[in-house]
């Protein structure tokens, strides 16, 4: 989009120079007509015919050039608009498009059309590139960010395939890098609606709301559930890398509020058991339909924050989702650092807990 606009500005500059050239030529015969032609392009037609073949004021060459450049500008402008609509279509949520429809139904139709087209192109690319590939199993599809599945197949890279998976990977990486580049960030204090809470972002961290993170999430293979609020990302972390880490926040309303246990009058062992049980209950409430065993579950009675780990996938791998959860109203705010390798476990644990600790509940 920016590239198109830059090219457009370049063409406009060229048109300006040609117009000045044309006006200088007309000025030699009629200064008034030259000024008029500068501001009102159709007047140059009069000069074209009046001074046709004139040694000093013939404007056939600059006029022809200005026509060509004008056509190019028109084409560029139309392409820039189409590209802008495509980019908007990726970034906007269904709710945003519905809102736009109230004011501009035509634009909303264009956005939906662009989204359908891009989805079809994406699916075609996503499905087609790996068909019949012996070298690498096709990556499995998943409906949610917490349902990643590996395909564990040793793959000698030298095996000949119809579609080169390396090329497909390069293309995918480029697409992801472009999507990351287009993210728009928020800083400072972030409203975590629908949860009645605000997060004071730590220094060097930034927030990208769900609507804007959708495309990057899809390209990273972690499509976002509807209850995801957004991601908090350190400014030095490149989301286009496989090993990028971030804190994903989601709000899960509960039918019944989870009551914190009363620890007074309990001995040390009972307190420890009670804390572990309460953290387990919170983890259970956030688990949904999945059956994952919360590891290292604990709860801090001072802050009300529960923390634990979940296996990042259903295989026995070294990756864990690090979770911190905070009760907000009748629900739970979940801060999750997904799929962190065990060598970086402390980072995952601290990052999730840090965001939970910097969150302030704004309504009881």
């Amino acid at each position: 989009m920016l590239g198109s606009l830059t090219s457009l500005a370049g063409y406009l500059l060229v048109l300006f120079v040609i117009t000045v050239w044309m006006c200088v030529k007309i000025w030699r015969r009629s200064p008034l007509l030259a000024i008029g032609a500068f501001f009102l392009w159709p007047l140059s037609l009069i000069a074209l015919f009046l001074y046709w073949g004139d040694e000093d004021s013939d404007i056939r060459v600059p006029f022809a050039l200005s026509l060509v450049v004008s056509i190019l500008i028109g084409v560029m402008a139309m392409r820039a608009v189409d590209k802008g609509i495509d980019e908007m279509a990726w970034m906007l949520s269904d709710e945003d498009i519905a809102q736009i429809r109230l004011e501009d139904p035509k634009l909303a139709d264009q956005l939906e059309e662009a989204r359908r087209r891009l989805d079809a192109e994406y699916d075609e690319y996503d499905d087609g590139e790996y068909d019949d590939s012996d070298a690498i199993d096709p990556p499995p599809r998943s409906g949610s960010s917490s349902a990643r599945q590996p395909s564990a197949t040793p793959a000698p890279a030298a095996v000949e395939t119809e579609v080169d998976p390396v090329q497909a990977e390069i293309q995918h990486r480029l697409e992801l890098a472009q999507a990351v580049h287009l993210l728009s960030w928020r800083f400072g204090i972030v409203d975590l609606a629908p949860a009645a809470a605000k997060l004071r972002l730590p220094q060097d961290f930034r927030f990208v709301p769900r609507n804007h993170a959708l495309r990057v999430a899809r390209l990273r293979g972690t499509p976002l559930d509807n209850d995801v609020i957004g991601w908090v990302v350190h400014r030095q972390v490149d989301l286009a890398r496989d090993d990028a880490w971030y804190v994903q926040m989601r709000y899960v309303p509960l039918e019944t509020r989870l009551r914190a246990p009363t620890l007074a009058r309990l001995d040390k062992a009972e307190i420890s058991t009670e804390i572990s049980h309460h953290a387990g209950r919170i983890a259970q409430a956030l688990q949904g339909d999945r059956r994952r065993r919360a590891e290292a579950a604990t709860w801090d009675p001072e802050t009300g924050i529960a923390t634990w780990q979940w296996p990042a996938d259903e295989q026995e791998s070294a990756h864990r989702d690090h979770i911190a959860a905070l009760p907000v109203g009748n629900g739970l705010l979940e801060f999750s650092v997904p799929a962190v390798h065990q060598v970086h476990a402390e980072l995952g644990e601290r990052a999730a807990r840090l965001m939970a600790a910097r969150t302030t509940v704004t309504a009881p």
Partner: protein
Amino acid sequence: MLLRTVLLLAAPLLFALPAQAATADDEAWIARYIASGQAPGLTPSSAQVREITFAQLGEHVGRRVRFVLNDGRSRHGIVESVGGGQVQVRAQFGSGFFLYGLSRSDIRSIQLD
């Protein structure tokens, strides 16, 4: 009376301080970890990119590396495990991740990426 008021006012502070200290501790730890270059997801400067041997791969499990293959192509991924002349690499693609193996004999060079 004054002492009671001061104690009442100080009580919430006493609870809040350890929590704030823990937050500051987490924040400082993350900042140090990132500054050390050990954290995942960071784009290394060209000076930080260094070549390692296959034998050293075991020390870099969980790190992202770049393999240049004998045919000149390169692959990126996170080292999952190393053994028996093979390295298992985890890479993300499309709507999930996949694991693939590379043989020592197929690899020309390895860079910590």
